[in-house]
């Protein structure tokens, strides 16, 4: 009896408090600012990536605002932390779409949190764009239908895995591969799955597949085992924080076969973690190369170093492009309107960013050329560019 009454009182109190804490719901179109929501992992265990992407986005927005904004209005960001947790990602997404009435949501960093954030965006007809989510089912549902308001600007897992597999078989002429996969990352598992399928189809065989978890530091046991299976090439589709250590330990153990990976390697920290001597015979696919000396990349690097006092990595570059990508689509949409923006995003053609020039295809994924980088003594060198 007491419990029911207390439940009632408490629920009424909480509803009134929640209702009271809503932010000023202005009509977005009439104000002189363009509100963009940022739904990122600013705390929690993938905070590195969330913070990296927001750093890039904020640099882009700062530059755009200094150049007069977009459609004559200044961009105002509403940045919220999803704590690297998918419930919170859904919560933040709902808040941005309904309370803050943003014209678009950028984020999240991981595929999982992006997937959690999309239902709210879809229901409220607000476009959501992730610069780093890579899973195929972010933009396409289980029936093969495209999710109308969801976009990615980073390669799909299937693409990178296939590219690297072709490279391993055709270019490096290997027939036996071993895989070392981060089982806590859907990105890593996605790439591994696609690599395996393609490699087998080409005629190669996978002699060993081992696993690790993110944030681990000791890989000697699995590397020793892999070494014993005598592979000709090792595919490690993980993030640089672990890959750096993996490469170092592999070379320490005398495992000198080529090591291949995806855009998760792209960071100046890779050489620090692995040690320049060990970083030999390592190849990875990327969108952005810090060594690319084209004008736009150099300009971006200088601006980033000026604002943040450090070299940008792939996440910073992806965030930067995401900011500009959104601004470009808004300009083409002609108005601060979510539906018009969605239509403009869907037909993007040849957007020029620091991570490459790309268009958006019918599945709302980017059609981007991919660069393969070879590491020689810790220095990245451009090897080749593959067009899709």
């Amino acid at each position, binding site marked *: 009896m007491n419990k029911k009454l207390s439940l009632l009182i408490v*629920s009424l109190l909480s509803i009134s408090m929640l209702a009271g804490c809503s932010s000023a719901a202005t009509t977005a179109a009439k104000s002189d600012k363009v509100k963009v929501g940022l739904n990122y992992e600013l705390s929690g265990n993938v905070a590195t990536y969330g913070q990296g992407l927001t750093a890039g986005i904020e640099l882009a927005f700062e530059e755009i605002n200094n150049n007069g904004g977009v459609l004559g209005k200044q961009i105002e960001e509403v940045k919220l932390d999803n704590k690297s947790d998918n419930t919170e990602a859904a919560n933040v997404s709902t808040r941005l779409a309904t309370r803050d009435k943003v014209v678009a949501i950028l984020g999240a960093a991981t595929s999982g949190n992006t*997937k959690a954030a999309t239902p709210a965006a879809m229901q409220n007809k607000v476009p959501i764009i992730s610069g780093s989510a890579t899973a195929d089912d972010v933009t396409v549902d289980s029936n093969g239908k495209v999710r109308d308001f969801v976009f990615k600007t980073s390669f799909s897992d299937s693409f990178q895995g296939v590219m690297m597999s072709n490279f391993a078989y055709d270019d490096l002429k290997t027939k036996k591969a071993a895989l070392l996969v981060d*089982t806590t990352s859907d990105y890593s598992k996605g790439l591994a799955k696609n690599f395996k399928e393609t490699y087998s189809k080409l005629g190669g065989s996978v002699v060993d597949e081992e696993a690790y978890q993110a944030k681990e530091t000791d890989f000697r046991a699995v590397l020793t085992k892999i070494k014993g299976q005598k592979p000709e090439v090792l595919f490690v589709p993980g993030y640089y924080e672990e890959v750096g250590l993996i490469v170092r330990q592999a070379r320490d153990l005398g495992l000198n076969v080529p090591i291949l990976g995806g855009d998760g390697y792209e960071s100046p920290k890779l050489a620090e973690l692995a040690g320049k001597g060990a970083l030999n015979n390592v190849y990875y696919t990327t969108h952005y190369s810090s060594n690319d000396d084209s004008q736009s990349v150099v300009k971006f690097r200088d601006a980033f170093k000026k604002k943040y006092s450090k070299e940008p990595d792939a996440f910073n570059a992806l965030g930067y492009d995401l900011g500009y990508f959104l601004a470009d689509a808004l300009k083409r949409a002609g108005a601060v309107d979510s539906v018009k923006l969605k239509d403009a995003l869907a037909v993007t053609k040849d957007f020029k960013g620091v991570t490459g020039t790309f268009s958006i295809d019918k599945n709302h994924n980017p059609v981007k050329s991919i660069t393969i980088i070879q590491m020689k003594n810790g220095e990245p060198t451009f090897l080749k560019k593959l067009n899709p």
Partner: protein
Amino acid sequence: MKLFSKRNIIGFLIIMLSYISVQLLINNGTIDSYLMLNIVIIGINIILAVSLNLITGFTGQFSLGHAAFMSIGAYVSAIVTVKFGFPFVIGIIFSALAAALAGVLIGIPTLRLKGDYLAIATLGFGEIVRILALNIDYIGGATGFNDIPQFTNWAWIFFLTVGTVLLITNFIKSYHGRACIAISEDEIAAEATGVNTTYYKVLAFAIGAAFAGIAGSLYANYFYFIKPDSFGFMKSIDILVIVVFGGLGSIGGSIVGAVALSIISLFLQNIPELRMVVYSLILFIIMVYRPQGLLGKHEFKLFKKGGKINVSAESK
């Protein structure tokens, strides 16, 4: 105790009134999807807190793996509604059963353990469930399980939350509940006076787990997407914090704790970098200055004069 006593009728009317008033607010748009989402979160937290309170507060079994039961419930419900296409109620029932089974599986081997050892064993169990889920591709593994149909609405969440609170409260007040409380006070004395401690400890785990499974089911069928890492050690800690914050051994406390902490969490959304630091300080202050929680061992006394419920939840 008569079914149609004055208290029961008033209680029933209050419940129906609350339900209808909120449903009206939803229908006319005052409660938008953001508020609804947070109401669902609070409801789920209440169910989790009350069910953990049964295990840890009333039966004195220190459990740090409660999120694993929620995880099992969530995945079972997802499988039942997506892969087999059954209606939601079947999903809920199977979730409860699967989680209860897991509760029995963890309850039986750990019968001999007490205190900190039991806590670590349950923590280990929780981690094992999470690692298994990460590696089973049928349910998506690390990629998670996506596109779960949204069946949870105000009716489901309200009636299941109220139902959980009522069922567990009635359990506590019954002979079975008193047996559990006796076990938490002094297990050897309870055994000596004829209480079948084995049966009641496992029963507490099973019931607590079943309701956590229901909470998991509600979660999966609201948020469309689940992945194993959402149900890890930190989630178990979050639920335990709610229970301790509200007061171990107080059902009303669990409810108030769930609401209070969810609201605090919402306010902390505005200071992302310092959020966890502030949260840890709040935790610390509560533990040092009021370790018995907000409500301690008290329950709400509204229709009774004086007298707190004789529950002592001093786990040693």
